[in-house]
């Protein structure tokens, strides 16, 4: 699910980037914010950070002792993407193993669909293994699949989400 989130962060402007001209200061605050935004990549609550849409408010700067850097509280709105349990999403298959397949869905790299969660599909071994059901519907590399999300997990050290998903239920499976 895409989210629109308003966040309040502190942006630190190094003393040497401070400028007497107001516009330049604003610019360095924005560049620094975008920089922090990209570096942060994702959080557990908000999901993956995609883009800042508006800068809503820049608060009064506070000079930090010793360094002379200035800290500005900044209020901004951004777009994020986070997988949720119970959600229906579409992903593209990128790896097929005997016991299940891995999919990609937007910024989420590792989505696992176990063969136990698509019990009507059978593993067909070969050079390019696939999963296929009686109706000849195929789960193969590069195919888009609609699935429901059973669980999600956020890995703090990698700043990545992982999800386990299922095809059990009607209206789920490969989409043309």
């Amino acid at each position, binding site marked *: *699910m*895409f*989210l*629109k*989130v*308003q*966040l309040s962060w502190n942006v630190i402007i190094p003393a040497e980037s401070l400028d007497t001209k107001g516009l330049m200061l604003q610019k360095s605050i924005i*560049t620094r914010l*975008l*920089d922090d*935004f*990209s*570096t942060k*990549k*994702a959080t*557990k*609550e*908000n999901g*993956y*950070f*995609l*883009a800042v*849409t508006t800068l809503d408010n820049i608060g009064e700067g506070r000079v930090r002792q010793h360094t002379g850097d200035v800290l500005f509280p900044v209020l901004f709105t951004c*777009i*994020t*993407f986070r997988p*949720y*349990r*119970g*959600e*229906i999403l*579409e992903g593209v298959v990128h790896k097929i193993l005997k016991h299940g397949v891995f999919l*990609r*869905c*937007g*910024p989420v790299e590792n989505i696992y669909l*176990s063969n*136990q*969660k698509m019990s009507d599909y059978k593993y067909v071994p070969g050079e390019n293994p696939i999963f296929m059901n009686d109706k000849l519907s195929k789960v193969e590399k590069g195919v*888009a699949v609609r699935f*429901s*999300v*059973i*669980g*999600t*997990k*956020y*890995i*703090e*050290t990698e700043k990545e989400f992982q999800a*386990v998903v*299922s095809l*059990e*239920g*009607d*209206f*789920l499976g490969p989409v043309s």
Partner: protein
Amino acid sequence: MAEKGGKEFSLPKGKSSLKTPASVKGKDDSSAKSKGGRKVQFDSEDSLESKINMSSKSDGKTDTPVAKGDWGKGGKGGKSPIRKEASALELKIEQELPKNAKCLMDCEAAAILQGIQEQMVVLSEDPTIKIPTAFDRGLQYAKSGCHYTNPQSVRRVLEPLEKHGVSVSEMCVIANLCPESSDEVFALIPSLKGKKDKLTNPLKDTLSELAKLKQRT
């Protein structure tokens, strides 16, 4: 905060609560692994330490949705995954949503992200401006899941469903599904099944309105 959050996530729920006592008292370790997490908690010695652990565990649990618990079980691999089916896969986004956040439909996200993409030529001229790595993949996903050209009218069509008890997140999932029938909606969003009687007719109207907005490609 960071440490706690990390702990909660990097380990399955049952295990994480057990970790400290297990590492202190070796004999707990084996029983903890063979049995489910929580029961062992109560079986094990009621030393002060395990009590502390239990309380910290329940604290963590208040903001821990079912999802993580299930993931934990799955991750452990010991439990049969079929058991999870017992608890319906209900959307609980509203409860998990951080404050100041709201759900967007794929088509809304696509419109906003595409607007930024159009500025990219200018933006990329300035090497100091960094674009998040997830941006492109997010845009790509939003575009692939975008079945409607005009997000505003999609919202307008879906909003009447709100007074029939459909939450904003459910509305967004409906828009993202681009469903052809109300059966499809009820099959994919189990949380709406309870309201099926009241919802079927308004939903049918909504879906036929939505169909008119569909992108002709």
